[in-house]
């Protein structure tokens, strides 16, 4: 080794390691700078006309007024020249200017006497004669984002989120009297329910991502969100476990066997698992809130009692899922989980519906929504992985009649109650 390095010394072996790390970075910066300063030598001019990709981020309707927020999603700047509503040019002003730079946005304020209940096709002419189209399937006035409105959305969120989830949690005392077979089935019910939610949230996220500008990632936002959420939660789990190990290491060192970690973790953290389930369901309910909020804002939602009752029944099952992990800890000092903490779990799982309704009805951003749906999926996936070990029977099997039945019932419960709440 010594002889070899003397014969042909590796490049830079005389430099400190920080310099070795920094030099390539500097060279990359210089190369990019030079390339840009010379205007991309050798690449020549663009082949063909500029690419115009503009997406319509939001549509707001006030009497005699249509407001469109546009986002430039393409590589070139786009200049808005004229706007036509239902094949008629209409006067407008552009709040963010007529020229939209890459990833920039502007809001067009179009003067047009639209009529409630009619459909509108809008085309926007760019300076080079290209068209951007927007559609208003059913025109209805966008609710003013005033106190009344936020109050209404909050009430709605409480109706469909907090109350039913909390009611579902009232099954806890009953669960505590069930046998271990029943407990496993119940956890399986939670897993089935969560799996259904994960699938549902993925599809919903992808659907929303399709409307979002591709430049921000589109569908990949959903998967990135899921991955990030999963990894972050896994990291937190590992950190908590290590802390728990350290705490238990001194009194009982032999308990820390590798095979026991999962079970020990679950045993120590029935409350923690419940919290995770509540967070996962909370993110799902954020999505539900978004759906309610946007539907309400676009006038597509009839706030009938039927819808509220449907959501309530649907979400009650979610409450049951939250308290299911607590049942296991029932006999092991978990009685300390008082009413307030239970209520806290209910709020964590249910209140995001309020937030979602607010966001959905006022500042809906499809990219952000897609990311949030992804985060929800990741959280749910992590929760399923966490719960699964405690479903194992004495032979270590995961799938046996009780758990399979539990999962099927969980899926069926969400599917069937979901039929009540098609927004």
């Amino acid at each position, binding site marked *: 080794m010594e002889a070899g390095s003397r014969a042909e010394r590796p490049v830079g072996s005389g430099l400190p390691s920080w310099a070795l790390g920094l030099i390539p970075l500097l060279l990359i910066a210089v190369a990019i700078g030079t390339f840009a300063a010379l205007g991309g030598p050798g690449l020549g001019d663009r082949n063909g006309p500029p690419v115009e990709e503009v997406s319509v981020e939001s549509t707001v309707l006030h*009497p*005699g007024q249509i407001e469109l927020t546009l986002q430039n999603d393409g590589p070139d700047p786009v*200049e*808005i*020249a*004229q*706007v*036509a509503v239902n*094949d*008629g*040019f*209409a*006067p*407008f*002003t552009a709040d963010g200017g*007529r020229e939209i730079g890459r990833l920039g946005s502007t809001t067009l304020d179009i*003067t*047009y*006497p639209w*009529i*409630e209940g009619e459909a509108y096709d809008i*085309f926007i*002419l*760019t*300076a*080079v*004669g*290209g*068209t951007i189209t927007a559609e208003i399937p059913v025109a209805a*006035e966008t*609710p*003013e984002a005033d106190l*009344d409105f936020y109050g*209404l959305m909050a009430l709605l969120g409480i109706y469909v989120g907090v109350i039913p989830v909390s009611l579902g949690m009232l099954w806890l005392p009953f669960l505590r009297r069930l046998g271990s077979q029943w407990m496993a089935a119940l956890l399986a019910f939670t897993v089935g329910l969560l799996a259904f939610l994960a699938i549902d949230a993925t599809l919903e996220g992808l659907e929303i991502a399709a409307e979002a500008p591709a430049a921000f990632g589109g569908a990949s936002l959903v998967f990135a969100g899921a991955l990030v959420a999963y990894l972050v939660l896994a990291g937190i789990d590992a950190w908590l476990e290590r802390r728990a190990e350290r705490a238990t290491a001194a009194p009982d060192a032999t308990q820390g066997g590798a095979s026991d970690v999962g079970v020990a973790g679950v045993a120590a953290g029935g409350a923690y698992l419940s919290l995770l389930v509540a967070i996962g369901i909370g993110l799902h309910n954020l999505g539900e809130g978004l759906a309610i909020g946007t539907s309400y804002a676009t006038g597509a939602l009839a*706030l009938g009692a039927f819808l509220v009752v449907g959501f309530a029944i649907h979400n009650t099952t979610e409450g049951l899922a939250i308290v299911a992990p607590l049942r296991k800890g029932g006999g092991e000092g978990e009685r300390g989980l008082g009413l307030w903490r239970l209520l806290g779990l209910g709020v964590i799982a249910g209140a995001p519906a309020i937030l979602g309704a607010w966001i959905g009805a006022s500042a809906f951003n499809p990219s952000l929504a897609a990311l949030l749906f992804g985060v929800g999926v990741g959280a749910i996936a992590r929760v399923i992985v966490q719960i699964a070990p405690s479903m194992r029977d004495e032979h270590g099997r995961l799938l046996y009649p009780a758990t399979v039945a539990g999962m099927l019932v969980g899926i069926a419960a969400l599917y069937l109650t979901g039929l009540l709440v098609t927004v």
Partner: protein
Amino acid sequence: MAPDSTKNGISRRRLLGGAAALSVPAAIGLNGLVNGNSGAALATNGEAATESPLQGHEHGGFIHAGFAPDRVVDHDRNGFNPTEILRDFDYGKTRRLPSGRVLREWEIVAADREIEVAPGVSYEAWTYNGRVPGPTLRAREGELLRIKFINGSEHPHTMHFHGVHTALMDGMPGIGEDRGGGQIEPGEAFTYEFDASPFGVHLYHCHVAPLAAHIARGLYGAFIIDPKEGRPEADELVMVMNGFDTNFDGENEVYAVNTVGFHYINEPIAVPRDELVRIYLVNVLEYDPVNSFHIHGNFFHHYPTGTSLKPIEFTDTIIQGQAQRAILELEFPFDGDYMFHAHVTEFAELGWTGFFRVGDPSKLTAAAAASMYCDLPWGAKA
């Protein structure tokens, strides 16, 4: 939920109010004469609005469809102005042949040129003599016409005249290439020669395939042959009804008379009162099967193709398919601004709308204009 329903109630009332304001000018044939608010006031109080006809539009209210008010087309950069095109007749150069007959000659150059067809919207047009529509060629029945066509465009073109002539002079690709005619390649030239016949209002256009694209790009113009004995003196206007498919999807985004959408809204066509006005109307609109012309507050005599000196009807609306054309003759009995537009209302709202301005527009008030049509105060029952 209670506050929500109240809110909807309010908005619905507001909407109804707005609709009423809009329907007033339409109902009395006064489009554009009053703005939305004073329209509502008229309906209830009978008060006169004294604003000029275009004010409401300029203020951004919705009286009729229109462009964003903050910019107009740069006619200097376009190299032509639709207001000037109206009365711009190209008589060419004439000399008398030994036979005594008049020879009339023109030189027409095809060129590719970017033009602004609506404020801020540019279009890669193909032009005759740098303008769309091309020059209005005007001759007299029986003359010998010679049109030297030089193709300065990057694409092959021809000039195909509607008229009576030989096959070689038809501007038809595939016919007469061996004699220098047919399809004229870039950089080449050809001289069309034929008799001015028959009298009427005709057109010329490029006939190279794909035909729709070559016409839609702007290669067309009006071609007028006056009868030997001439026509009664009049204020004469050329109106070529066209449109532009700016995104090349086979549908027009902008409709117009003489190229620039809504141009005659911004610059109403000034015409005399109680004098004969003659309109040479040509429809070259591509991609749509029919076009139409309608005038407010007046009727005109309709001479289809202008080939007869007798009108076939007295009307206020006609329709034309592509290449159909007509002479319209009318007199304006009252001062004021009178809208004209395609009564294919979609085209009207996409640019094919304008105003005639008769007399001194400052004399006009909405009340005065209203009295022309209605003796009764507003809201009174007959």
